[in-house]
């Protein structure tokens, strides 16, 4: 049986400051080494100043993943030399003196598969390396420490996944959950990274490191299973080893350096006392926790009678569910859900588009109301939505500007109907006995009015006319 375990590193991108100092947590778009201070540069004499909110947010993640949360958490030093580590040790968490990481064991359902979570820990991100020089003689490494000290939550699972599909589903659930908790923006470059371990029946466990996005994680796992199966089928033993994900070539490569003395000499970080997160604080955190995706979905189905599939889409995306919850007033809930899931999704499917969008919840409310009161056809509403997202103008302004208002003047409509009947004599005849053909004729009227004809009124007038 194939076994896959994951170690997921997720940056707490919604924080203002780093884990142990007051430099910016969002290091992106800064000149190299401009977002640094004596603490995150590991200068002699500096001490870590633990970020309270980082502990709270990490605890929330643990709670949301149904993990146990201890009343005291501790930090440890993981000692190894690397140029991206300013102190040549990383401050992280472990459970060697009882459960002292932000999250202990837990489990989460992925479809009908139960995935066990081993632990959740809070730690600091290292800096970044840039390799320079072409010949081996002039090669050097440049280091940018802007990222060093960014708060990182590591989620470690048991090897409970059986195939890449389960991995993908888990990652979807996880990124939705992180976004819903408002702790992290999974779409930011480098915000989500992972290591995986993969073994197939009869083979050794292989670690894959350096996977820099969720997208690649699924690919890497898939590649590795295929590679191992191919070895197995040719009776070549699968080595117990660490491999790296090459994100250019999308393959795993055996790590050249033997993970020699991987003895991290973990010990307690004396500069950070154990932090008490008593039951009272935990309860308070829980009460402030955003509504879970599951509970949102349930609410949408039972309260608004929204179909399950639609509720699923709405609830799992925080952007949509926030819009929905803000704009609906029960009466128009179904219509709004409909607008979001059929028309809006194509307009704001990326982070950039969402940031540029001028749409507000009151726009949505106006749109839904106009459809319900038959001032706008669905078709016109779709055109209006496109304009709103682009310009942010009021719906009424857009209706007059684009002349989207319904044609509901009986005389005007009768004229157009007359025109259609004379153009389509055969259909007109047929329509007297076949209601399907009336729809065809209504469609013709729609064409002539660019979708603005009031469909109900048009149908009625046809019926009268054809007697």
């Amino acid at each position, binding site marked *: 049986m194939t076994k896959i375990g994951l170690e997921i590193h997720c940056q707490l991108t919604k924080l203002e400051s780093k884990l142990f100092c007051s430099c910016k947590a969002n290091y992106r778009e800064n000149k190299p080494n401009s977002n640094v201070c*004596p603490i995150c*540069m*590991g*200068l*002699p*004499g*500096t*001490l*870590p*100043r*633990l970020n309270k909110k980082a502990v709270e947010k990490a605890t929330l993640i643990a709670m949301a993943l149904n993990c146990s949360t201890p009343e005291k958490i501790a930090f440890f*030093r993981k*000692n190894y*030399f*690397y*140029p991206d580590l*300013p*102190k*040549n*040790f990383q401050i992280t968490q472990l459970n060697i003196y009882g459960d002292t990481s932000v999250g202990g064991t837990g489990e989460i359902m992925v479809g009908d598969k139960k995935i066990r979570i081993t632990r959740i820990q809070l730690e600091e991100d290292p800096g970044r390396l840039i390799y320079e020089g072409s010949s081996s*003689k*002039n090669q*050097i*490494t440049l*280091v940018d420490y802007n990222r060093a000290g960014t708060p990182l939550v590591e989620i470690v699972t048991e090897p409970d996944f059986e195939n890449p599909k389960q991995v993908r589903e888990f990652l979807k659930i996880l990124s939705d959950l992180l976004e819903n908790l408002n702790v992290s923006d999974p779409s930011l470059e480098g915000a989500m990274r992972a290591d995986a371990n993969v073994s197939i029946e009869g083979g050794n466990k292989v670690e894959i490191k350096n996977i820099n996005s969720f997208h690649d994680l699924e690919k890497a796992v898939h590649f590795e299973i295929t590679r191992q199966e191919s070895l197995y089928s040719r009776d070549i033993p699968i080595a117990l080893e660490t491999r790296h994900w090459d994100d250019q070539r999308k393959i795993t490569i055996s790590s050249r350096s033997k993970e020699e003395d991987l*003895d991290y*000499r973990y*010990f*307690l970080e*004396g*500069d*950070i*006392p154990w932090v008490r997160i008593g039951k009272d604080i935990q309860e308070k955190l829980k009460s402030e926790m955003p509504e879970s995706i599951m509970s949102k979905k349930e609410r949408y189905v039972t309260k608004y009678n929204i179909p399950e599939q639609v509720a699923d889409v709405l609830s799992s995306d925080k952007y949509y569910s926030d819009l929905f919850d803000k704009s609906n007033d029960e009466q128009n809930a179904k219509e709004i859900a409909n607008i979001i899931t059929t028309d809006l999704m194509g307009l704001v499917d990326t982070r950039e588009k969402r940031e540029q969008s001028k749409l507000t919840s009151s726009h949505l409310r106006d749109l839904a109301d106009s459809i319900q009161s038959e001032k706008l056809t669905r078709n016109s509403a779709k055109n209006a939505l496109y304009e709103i997202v682009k310009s942010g103008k009021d719906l009424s302004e857009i209706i007059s500007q684009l002349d989207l208002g319904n044609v509901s003047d009986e005389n005007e409509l009768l004229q157009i109907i007359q025109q259609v009947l004379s153009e389509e004599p055969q259909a007109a005849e047929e329509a007297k006995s076949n209601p399907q053909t009336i729809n065809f004729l209504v469609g013709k009227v729609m064409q002539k009015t660019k979708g603005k004809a009031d469909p109900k009124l048009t149908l009625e007038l046809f019926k009268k006319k054809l007697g």
Partner: protein
Amino acid sequence: MNLKISALEYVEQVKNGNISAEDFVSATIDRIKNVDDKLHAFLQVNSKAVEQAAQVDKKVKSGEKVGSCFGMPISIKDNICIKHSKTTCASKMLENFVAPYDATVISKLKEQDAVFIGKANLDEFAMGLTTEFSAYGPSRNPWNTDYVPGGSSGGSAVSVSAFECVASLGSDTGGSVRNPASFCSTVGYKPTYGLISRYGLISYANSIEQIGPITRTVKDTAFMLNILSGLDSHDNTTIDNENVDYLSGIEAGIEGKKIGIIQEMIGEGIDHTVLSATNDAVSKLEGLGAICEPISIDMVKYSVASYYTITATEAGSNLARYDNLRYGYDFPVEGFEFNSYISKARTKFGPEVIRRMILGGFVPSSGHAGKYFLKSLKVKSKLTREVTEAFKKYDFLVAPTVPILPFKIGEKIDDPVALFQVDINTVMSNLTGVPSISVPYAISNGLPIGIQLLAKQNDDKSLLQAAHALETTVNLPEVPI
């Protein structure tokens, strides 16, 4: 100019206009010029000290608000960062390191108008108890320059003892303030863990060390503590002392107090003159109305091994950052591979530091942690319980600060294990976090002996009262330099 005055006397005299800070600091600089060739207390003398003192005088004259130090010249152990000045840890590795920020204790002293007269010598990275391991040469004991001044804050103790400053800041990881204070006949204080912020103190063994003042009198220590102590948001391990005034009521005395004499600290290996000084001190304490009884603390036997295991482990990690990439000395990276570069760069460490790095790699390693490191942590826990128990019965504990007299430079430098044993009386208060103080008590054959008093955690104020009481019973000769 009389330089042989206490900090409190200095403050009084400048406040009253009897002396000027500028004259005093200038005379201090002259004194350093005269004696420091012999003593080598300083690695660096502040060339702007006189100018800074003159600024304070201006404030005094103009009636402006003046900080409580009134331009007092203070020496600072060279492992505490002063912004824009070199902080070397007496190591070649940090020969050119200029701190870009002030340690919290430095900010506090600046606010109180102290003048930093210079950076004091130490054993490299504070690892040692003789100051012989300074990469820039040893300091010498002003009582007899053939002898070690103790360490690692040797330069600090020498500078106070030889009137090269009024007070000093040292750091105490296992006795590094109290040991040289004892060897140089000054007061040395190791506060309750967390009482003084460590921000800006270059770590050696961060879980047990503290910055501590070295002064001429116990009252001076209380004065310094008033300035230095308290919560600091830059150091998560600091504790709230609710702004206790350590000077007020310092003359309360010790009548009716119970004092335990730690038997493990006056047993095998103790110098007989140190033992008789200790017995004498005990009778003086009794004369002051205290009740003294012998007490046994079993874990003391294991404390030195535990101490060196823990400190080596933490040092191995704390000193890992010295890879010469971000700061350090000139040594180009081209043509090297990472591991070979830093292994070469780090040979600038001196031999004692290298030994402890090797130890620090060994004792917590996966094959050996159970036998050495974990066991040491457990000894620390049990020792802490035993000491807590002892303080349920006794207000204070007493022992000689060091079981032997100062020894000659070079005498023990090649025998690390013999040096270990010298620490047996001081490491306990570091491992358990309790405060302790060394009070100058006697001179034997021209060499000083200090008596150590300990109190329970956060009882620093009472400890100073007891130390002051003991101090009043002593009348010592002047340093012969």
